[in-house]
């Protein structure tokens, strides 16, 4: 099982002839992901690392039956690439592109909803089901197959967490980096539901950040719907008010979205919150023993 991607995933790579696209297409293929094609307008007919390239997503989907697409195009073109994937019938789109204008993402959202297309990102590291499919820029080698479902608003912090899990023998069912942009695709709530429904997932790690109220909503959702153990970590406890901490897009303003509030929200519903990344494995083991 696992969620969202597995060994049956048929992946295409939009922007496959670009620097990042070609690099990560090869990495994903090497990991064992079923990369069935790539898209690059005007490069149809070429190959990248043995992967056939098409002019349009529509052509690629027709030729390969792809159901998932990962996007590596420059930020100004990302929204259009997401729409193209959705229109072509792809059911899951992962947008890695960093720096996509917020209004572009707002424009994209209702169309995806209408088409029933799931989106992860933009500005995210992607996701992985260890041993089955890597769809993103995550370093595949740090992951271990197992029962922990992980979701995170951050990139390298996720790797840090996974490293802690793996070195402590806690394997992962699926790890999803949802990205930190103000307007993004799948969020904690949807993923909590999926992990809750996934028989392979035994426990859930949620890595949040300051800004917004996604964590507060997640806490509420956990209280009402999630029976599996959940542990959390919130980055940005030390961030000063009114400052935007880099690409994560985290903003603290007017007393909402602070780390303290988020931690309190989780602890109020019985979700322990690690103060240091190193604490996560022990907390998990404790929860699993209960």
């Amino acid at each position, binding site marked *: 099982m696992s969620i969202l991607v597995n060994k049956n995933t048929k992946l295409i790579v939009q922007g496959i002839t670009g620097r990042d696209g070609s690099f990560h297409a090869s990495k994903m293929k090497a990991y064992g992901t079923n990369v069935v094609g790539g898209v690059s307008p005007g490069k149809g007919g070429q190959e990248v690392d043995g992967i056939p390239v098409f002019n349009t997503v529509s052509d690629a989907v027709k030729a390969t039956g792809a159901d998932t697409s990962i996007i590596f195009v420059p930020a100004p073109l990302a929204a259009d690439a997401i729409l193209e994937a959705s229109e072509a019938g792809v059911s899951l789109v992962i947008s890695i592109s960093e720096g996509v204008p917020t*209004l572009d993402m707002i424009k994209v959202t209702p169309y995806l909803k209408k088409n029933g297309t799931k989106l992860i990102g933009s500005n995210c590291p992607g996701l992985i089901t260890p041993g089955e499919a890597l769809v993103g820029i995550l*370093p595949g080698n740090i992951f271990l197959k197992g029962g922990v479902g992980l979701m995170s608003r*951050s990139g390298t*912090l996720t790797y840090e967490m996974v490293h802690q899990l793996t070195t402590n023998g806690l394997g992962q069912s699926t790890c999803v980096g949802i990205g930190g942009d103000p307007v993004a695709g799948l969020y904690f709530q949807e993923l909590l539901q999926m992990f809750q429904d996934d028989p392979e997932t035994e426990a859930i790690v949620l890595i949040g950040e300051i800004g917004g109220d996604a964590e507060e909503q997640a806490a509420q959702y956990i209280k009402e719907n999630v029976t599996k153990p959940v542990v959390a970590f919130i980055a940005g406890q030390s961030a000063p008010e009114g*400052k935007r*901490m880099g690409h994560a897009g985290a903003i603290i303003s007017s007393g909402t979205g602070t780390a303290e509030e988020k931690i309190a929200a989780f602890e109020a519903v019985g979700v322990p919150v690690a*103060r240091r990344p190193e604490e996560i494995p022990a907390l998990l083991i404790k929860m699993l023993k209960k």
Partner: protein
Amino acid sequence: MKIHEYQAKEIFSRYSIPVTREELCFTVEEVSSATQKLGLPVVVKAQVLAGGRGKAGGVKLAKSLDEATTAATAILGMDIKGYTVEKVLVAEGVRFNNEVYVGLTIDRKSKSVIFMASREGGVEIEEVAKENPDAILKFPIDPDLGMTPFLARKIAFSLFTEFSLVKQAADMFQKLYRIFMDTDASLVEINPLVITDEGNLLALDGKMNFDDNALFRQSAIEAIMEPDEDEKVELDAKSKGLTFIRLDGSIGCMVNGAGLAMATMDMIKLYGGEPANFLDIGGSSSPKKVIDAMNLILSDPKVKVVMINIFGGITRCDDVARGLVAALEQIKVEIPIVIRLAGTNSKEGLEILKQAQLPVVETMTQAAQKAITLCETISHL
């Protein structure tokens, strides 16, 4: 990114939103002639990119020419939250009988632009939000429809009862939405929006923030931006592929990834230290980036220790280590450095660093604790 009140109101004017008659002044003399031109009373307002200028004494009503020049003398050169006031806006003093708040921003939850309206205008909206959240009405705007006339009217009816005001307001709200979309704004705000004694709506103040990610297609906005000192440093860093934010502490941080950078700062704070900055160097191992990052950190005289925290993912730790060594050979660092390296090929990476006699640790906790200890030692010297 922010712009000044006067710049926001210039944009409002271009969309035919009524604003006060006003002039931007850099000297007391200019304030004097602007006052004579506009007629008394006038309001002299500091133009700085910081909130709370009213409380700081940066806004003064002047009923005589004398009062105007006195106000200008007081305000020009004033320090507001670290910003020096270099210019003031002299605006006509208007008689009005009602103040409301209107603003547009991004709503993460509904994934749309949201219109906020409150009858409690004139005060900081954050305070209203805290003390009386129900006083702020929120109207998410369907991205496919935009600000329809009916929605603009519905919002206007929530603020005003007189139909002539409702019509003016509905027209204005559609224009505000157009401004928001046309400029890739992240905030458009009129506070207060007042009803003049003549029964007309007038924007007394104006505020606009913009989406950094969209600046590539907003050259007109980019052109009028005035980054302050901190922002200049941040922009310069950005041009080098670094995300940098200056803070007040003494431990300089260099981390790959924003989330990990925040977590690193959290660790420093957890163990009693204070980070001097947020610095995300992204995912490459190029020595050039490390040099740029180190120079950026060292340009802050408050920094006493540098803590480097790298998690090797796609970029392997041994490559990172070689990059660090190469960089630190080229740049003279006089203060202590603590390096934490983990992830893919960390053993090989740590070995390279040790051979180069760089001080390495294996966990974030150790790194933070060591950095703090070093910092305290230096402070006690």
